[in-house]
């Protein structure tokens, strides 16, 4: 398993750019599109974000497309659902089955919802593709989110990658020993994998605690903030 988004967030032209500006721009535009709910604004925001991501941050078109595909598919499915089942008033298009059809109100609802999703999603895309998690947590610290929340999140972020590494090792070991053949053995293998991972994780937490203690951990993780250029 790979986190392409995480890799991209650390390796693009905007990674080192002032994080507060990035967060304020993306969250601000996201909230604005959500509240104003205006079709023209949605399209403007989407185009603006595409320019920022592709042109300014120089993220490859292929990875941006990959990032957008799954949400687009989801949005299309849900909006089709809204289109056919959530209207009132006279039908403007009739499918002929049990009176299911499109009405003017459902068409409006589906189109506005789709565009709103899309615009908000492109804002999220700009934020996640250009800003590493450590920076986002730093911003959370600025808005006075409790230190303990951020500490746990930071330790979790660190641990996730160690787990993924262990997971792929264990998975390979299982696969070479005929695990994951058919659905019954897949369940068995997955169950073994997770219960093993849980004990590994407890061991890991002990080690982590030892290493924190030996570095004078007092319940707060001070993080070095490098001076960012530009």
């Amino acid at each position, binding site marked *: 398993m790979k986190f392409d988004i995480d890799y991209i967030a650390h390796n693009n032209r905007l990674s080192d750019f002032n994080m507060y500006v990035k967060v304020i721009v993306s969250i601000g535009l996201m909230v604005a599109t959500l509240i104003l709910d205006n079709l023209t604004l949605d399209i403007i925001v989407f185009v603006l974000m595409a320019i920022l991501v592709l042109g300014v941050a120089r993220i490859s078109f292929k990875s941006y497309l990959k990032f957008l595909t799954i949400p687009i598919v989801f949005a299309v499915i849900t909006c089709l659902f809204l289109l056919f089942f959530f209207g009132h008033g006279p039908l403007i298009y009739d499918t002929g089955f049990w009176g299911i059809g499109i009405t003017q109100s459902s068409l409006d609802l589906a189109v506005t919802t789709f565009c709103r999703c899309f615009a*908000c999603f492109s804002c999220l895309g700009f934020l996640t593709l250009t800003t590493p998690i450590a920076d986002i947590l730093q911003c959370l610290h600025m808005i006075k989110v409790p230190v303990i929340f951020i500490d746990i999140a930071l330790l979790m972020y660190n641990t996730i990658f160690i787990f993924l590494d262990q997971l792929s090792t264990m998975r390979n070991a299982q696969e070479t020993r005929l695990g994951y053949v058919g659905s019954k053995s897949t369940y068995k293998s997955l169950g073994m994998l997770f219960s093993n991972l*849980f004990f590994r994780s407890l061991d890991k937490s002990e080690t982590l605690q030892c290493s924190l203690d030996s570095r004078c951990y007092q319940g707060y993780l001070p993080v070095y903030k490098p001076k960012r250029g530009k």
Partner: protein
Amino acid sequence: MHIMEGFLPPFWCAVWYVIAIIVVAYGLYEIKKVVDETPESKALLAVSGAFMFVISSLKLPSVTGSCSHPTGNGLGAALFGPAVTGVLATIVLIFQAILLAHGGLTTLGANCVSMGIVGPFVGWIVYKLLTKAGVPSKINIFLIAFIADIVTYIVTAIQLGLAFPEPTTMAAITKFFLIFAPTQLPLAIAEGLLTVIIWNGLMSYKPKLLNKLGAISDSELSKGE
């Protein structure tokens, strides 16, 4: 299924955010109490959160042929209790939005209420009641995972129905739930089965540790040995 970024109207985003923040603040208060007493539990919490994230990012084969992600919140609730699970699930949801583009930041509150708060909480109550009634933890853990999943989807359906009351709120909730049901029932059963297998593994390796976490009763511990 997470509610997508931008799918809910602003009013409902705000409502769910407020509810989520109140509950998560309480959960943080609980965690803080635990951490002040035993400082080493912070590492355990972080690692368990990472465990939940990794579980939820893996694909699970299901009966319908589609693939879905186990939520892991039933297991979390059984092991750590609902308050802690709520906080950990919030962090997991933030990471899912930022690292995997699942869910979103504006709908974070709503997702948090359904996946991190109501689902695990109901599951946990059922778990406690059945443990008191002496039901073996293997059956119990299936039920908690199943119920936590189903409740999560009921809450999601309610959230969507409230946001799109067309023609009436109740009718919309029913419609959304009927759409979810055919795919989610098999998934909930699948997650329940998987959780039982994980639980069997946990029980056979280290039953004492589960007892220490308060997840299984003393009588079951002695029976296991």
